[in-house]
């Protein structure tokens, strides 16, 4: 099964273990009952309506984790939320899922059908904990001409649960999709996002912040597929690994024929706070088009001694200086998170966990 989840778009040496999902991050071996497909019944701002059925052209958008995960969540979804967006909305839709021992498995299927020119922010928050608990979400986005969709996905699960978050976004002419992720919790957390830049001038922005410690295992598979002309993708990831945690990030910019004059940038910074953490980064650039510009950069390692010294020379303790530098890495992502109290909550979680790790760095 793991060979079908988070597949690297072009495989490499099998010994590196990056071609598929880390085996340890597979869905927990437990009973999965058929879901009720319960439609969302929370608050919806004016301009948004729920669709009873999902049009096939949206239901067929593959998420970044692959077809297997699409089916796994869609077929037996416990909850559904199919949004039809018209016009420009200033108020976000905020949906929270909470795991507990009474509800240890939640499979949620989201769809956002953004009509031309519409504008919406959706915030997905996953919390709670349960033994062998599992949250799986599939989000399918169809951003039609000149629409703007912002998806903020916050994962704050406890250390017994497993998280699976797969997103597929079709980006039409002049449309823009932003995905902002903060991945903090879970015994294991697997994420995959795929953006299909089909229309001319489409724009994709992805910002991810993660913090892993103890024995957490994170596994990402992010893809920006350019098929339209003059499309842009920006994928930025900042993370901290402590304890005996491990992480794989696959990030792929794929320029296909026809994507002339497109630009794709990808970068990652990773801070390893412990000698037992393991980081694997696999940044692919695939190119079948001449007139494109693709770039990738990664910096992996420790604190910059010069920065630490500079901050300490201004009176900060070493611990304070380190905390400041860690927060600085997360800031570009955190600044994009709304509402404000959610951002503060995440910041507090990070600070609390940093305090636990100061000694081992």
């Amino acid at each position, binding site marked *: 099964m793991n060979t079908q989840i988070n597949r690297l778009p*072009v*495989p*490499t*040496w*099998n010994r*590196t273990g*990056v*071609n598929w999902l880390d085996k340890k991050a597979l869905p927990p071996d437990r009973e999965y009952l058929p879901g009720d497909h319960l439609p969302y019944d929370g608050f919806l701002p004016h301009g948004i309506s729920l669709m009873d059925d999902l049009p096939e052209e949206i239901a067929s958008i593959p998420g970044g984790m692959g077809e297997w995960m699409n089916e796994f969540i869609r077929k037996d979804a416990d909850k559904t939320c199919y949004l039809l967006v018209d016009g420009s909305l200033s108020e976000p839709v905020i949906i929270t899922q909470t795991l507990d021992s009474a509800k240890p498995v939640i499979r949620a299927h989201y769809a956002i059908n953004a009509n031309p020119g519409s504008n919406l922010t959706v915030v997905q928050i996953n919390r709670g904990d349960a033994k062998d608990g599992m949250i799986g979400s599939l989000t399918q986005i169809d951003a039609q001409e000149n629409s703007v969709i912002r998806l903020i996905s916050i994962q704050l699960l406890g250390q017994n649960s497993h998280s699976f978050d797969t997103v597929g976004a079709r980006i039409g002419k002049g449309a823009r999709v932003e995905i902002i992720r903060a991945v903090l919790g879970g015994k294991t957390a697997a994420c995959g996002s795929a953006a299909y830049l089909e229309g001319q001038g489409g724009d994709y922005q992805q910002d991810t912040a993660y913090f892993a410690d103890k024995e957490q295992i994170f596994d990402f598979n992010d893809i920006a597929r350019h098929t339209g002309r003059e499309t842009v993708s920006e994928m930025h990831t900042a993370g901290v690994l402590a304890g005996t945690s491990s992480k794989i990030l696959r990030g792929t910019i794929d*320029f296909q*024929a026809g994507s*002339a004059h497109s630009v794709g940038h990808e970068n990652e910074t*990773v801070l*390893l*706070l*412990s*000698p*037992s*953490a*393991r*980081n*694997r*980064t*696999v*940044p*692919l*650039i*695939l*190119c*079948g*088009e*001449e*007139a*494109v*510009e*693709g*770039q*990738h*950069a*990664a*910096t*992996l*390692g*420790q604190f910059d001694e010069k920065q630490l010294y500079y901050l300490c020379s201004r009176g900060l303790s070493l611990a304070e200086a380190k905390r400041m530098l860690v927060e600085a890495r997360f800031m570009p992502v955190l600044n994009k998170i709304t509402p404000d109290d959610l951002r503060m909550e995440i910041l507090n979680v990070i600070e609390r966990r940093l305090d636990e790790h100061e000694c081992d*760095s």
Partner: protein
Amino acid sequence: MKDFKQEKTRVDQADRTIYDVKDKLDPAFLMDSGITPEIVNQISKEKNEPEWMRLFRLKSLKLYNEIPIPSWGPSLDELNMDQIVTYVRPKSTMKAKWSDVPDDIKDTFERLGIPKAERKSLAGVGAQYDSEVVYHNVRAEVASKGVVYTDIESALTGPYSEMIRKHFMKLVPPSDHKFAALHGAVWSGGSFVYVPAGVSVEIPLQSYFRLNAPGAGQFEHTLIIVEEGAYLHFIEGCSAPRYYVANLHAGCVELYVGKNARLRYSTIENWSKNMYNLNTKRASVEEGGTVEWISGSFGSHISYLYPMSILKGKKARMEFTGITFAGEGQNLDTGAKVLHAAPDTTSHISTKSISRDGGNSTFRSLVTVTEKAQGSKSAVSCESLMLDSISRSDTIPVMDISCNQADIGHEAKIGRISESAIFYLMSRGLSEDDARALIVGGFAEPIAKELPLEYAVEMNNLIHLEMKGSIG
């Protein structure tokens, strides 16, 4: 009205006939196609090898039959192993003097410019023709320093046999992958170099390999040991005529770099464009030692080539500088691997690739930093140039870091020749073709300048050949 829209110049397939010189096939010994234990035994017997080598070959053959072909990389579907004659020995035997080498063999070398290069500045030449070493010469001054440069077969039975047994396929075990196993079973020919401690070999040692028989595979083995504080520059140049049957090259290079020693290993590969180049190269570097790889890949139909450096001693260093030029019908999958297994080790990988005319180039790399490698540094930078929209260029790097006291940087860029740069050069009188060729030559310059002059010239000629337009 004048429309100044830029017309894309179509550049025709370069005239490669001067590199495609083919001789009449006249082997003294031609083996049945396909590989069986009997064939392996026969190879071993022909060579009068020690028993351990025969057993090693048989063990490798078993592995070869067990290991599947790679599940990644360019397709090998059209490579029919059964059709490849693994062992073709020319009539000639070992020669010490150039004048004794048979004329038709000499003629081919001459057209490739080898004797000239030899006369000028070579310390010694081991030129491999088909599978046997036919020509060998080490200059007295190098030998007098205790440097051994010989073909590996004679070394196997000579005074260095124990040293070879200790090192042969220890860095690249036959279990590494299918073609390493194949190599272990049928290897033939190649060089053995031993540089004693403290000896600095001032002139580069060179070796030319080429394939000549249709359907012949080439499995030469290069084993180089550079002892403590010694220095060597070894140059491997490859070129082969074109044939219509799939040809396989599954060579193996093992480099042992001692404490504080330095080894520079340069290669320009220009196999004919039906060749499968599945070559395995690996170096182990002791404390304070340095391995430097210079690698130019121009030829072959399909290449899998990722020289690996194992930095096992404190402060060991590796540098890799590579260029790959993929044209029509070529799928060149090249790159480098490095394993940081000791503190304060350093690696620097810098590559350039060019794709044109439907060619497919892939940069593939693996940087592994173990827990033991505190204070290590690694920097990878790869740049790719796409010359048209029917070609492909992929970048597939992996970084596997298990050390919190290491600095790892990676940069990849892909793009095309800027139209404004072409206009700038044209405004100084260069034709568009020449402007493109000049820019591509400039792109390759950081690699060219690492090569000895005659090789840099050869590489520039190759680029200009590939780019058509010729410059002054």
